[in-house]
């Protein structure tokens, strides 16, 4: 059972990050001038820090029962996807517009992780066709159905 549980160091770092968040919440909640609106955050902060300390100590002892942690391979495989998501939201949407960004994000993510060979023309044709079909569906539902006003960039 211990082989699928992450190592002590990884678990300790994860628990440490959570503990740090708890300490920051506590710091903010207890240092405000008007404590009235912060009564609840204070209660939460106390419970949060208490639990985080327990989790942290357990991680240090190596007594964690859950969580498989991250492997280097997993990081390598997921990093492009996460980078693409961030670029999609923070860069593509404001510059290109909502629909153009979505089309691009869908196409790139699909192509990046599609197991089919990049060298065949038919693969690319398939990718373009799927993207176009999917984006049409999205446009019908959101623009025509829900009448959502999406931010426009260079394109829609």
């Amino acid at each position, binding site marked *: 059972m211990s082989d699928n549980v992450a190592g002590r160091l990884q678990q300790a770092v994860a628990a440490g990050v959570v503990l740090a968040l708890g300490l920051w919440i506590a710091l903010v909640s207890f240092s405000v001038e008007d404590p009235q609106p912060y009564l609840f955050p204070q209660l939460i902060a106390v419970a949060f820090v208490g639990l985080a300390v327990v989790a942290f100590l357990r991680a240090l002892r190596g007594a964690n029962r859950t969580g498989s942690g991250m492997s280097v391979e997993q990081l390598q495989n997921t990093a492009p996807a996460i980078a693409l998501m961030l670029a999609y939201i923070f*860069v593509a949407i404001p*510059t290109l517009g909502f629909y153009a960004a979505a089309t691009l994000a869908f196409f790139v993510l699909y192509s990046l992780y599609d197991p089919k060979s990049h060298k065949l023309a038919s693969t690319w044709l398939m990718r373009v066709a799927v993207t176009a079909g999917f984006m049409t569906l999205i446009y019908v539902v959101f623009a025509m159905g829900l*009448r959502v*006003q999406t931010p426009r960039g260079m394109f829609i």
Partner: protein
Amino acid sequence: MKRFIAGLAGLASVAIAGPSVAEGYPDRPVSVMVAYSPGGATDFQARIVTMMAADEKYLGQPIVIVNKPGAGGKVGWTAFATNGGTDGYELAAYNIPHFIAQSIKFETKYTIDNLEPIANWGADPAVLVVGKDSPFNTVADLVNFAKENPGKVTVSGAGLFVGHHIAYLQMEKATGVKLAYVPHKGGAPALKSVIGGQVMAGVNNLSDAFRSQDSLKILAIADIERNTEFLPDVPTFKEAGFDVDDSSVNFRGLMVRKGTPQDVIDKLAKAVPEMFKDAKVAKQMKSGGSPLKIMNREEVQAMWKRREDYLKDLLKGL
């Protein structure tokens, strides 16, 4: 990185605002942001008065309501005044005195100076209500009880520095008694607390109280005159002997952000009041117990200014 993103966002907003052409405006649906939750008086009135927008006589495009509730309207109006579009496709509903009072009382990002009114559709006075089984039958009953039991009378309303709260503050000042204000998330939950007996009294919208008349007693109306259309038998506070005027009357209408092209504003200012006057709108508003008060852009601009000066004085004293 942060600066890079901010730069890009800035670039994008320029691209969005772009050169606007009022010629074809509007060529796609227009959204109206409502700073209160669905089902509240502002929300349903906004839905009713905008339902005819798609008619060629008015805008020729439908209006979609987007709710951004929270903190008595602060969440929605802050978002609108800072991030709302200025291309005429993003409108918002305003509530006077709420947003003006908040802009005086807190450091808000919205004031009457960075918003442009389009037209007013309604004026909903605040009313004082108690539960059906309440021992209070007049405002005087309630005030006398509160004099003997200072701070014991709980009064519900929809948040801080909204019309309800202003009427409450005026009532406290006029009667000289201490009450306990219980802010709620909106008019509907606040009224529910009165009907359910969780609080002893409430200040609420005339329209909501009107529809729940069977389970309530409406003691007084915070206006200059009685409302002859819906509640002819309910006295004003002044008639009941307490000096509470019409400063809490809730004016509702549509506005855009400053920076919206003038020709777009002009077009809206012309079409929107006509849309409010539609017979179908009037019928639905009446069945909801909601008084219509249609004012054009100039009238609203004057009203905003007047209200701000007035509220500045009033809030100083409260």
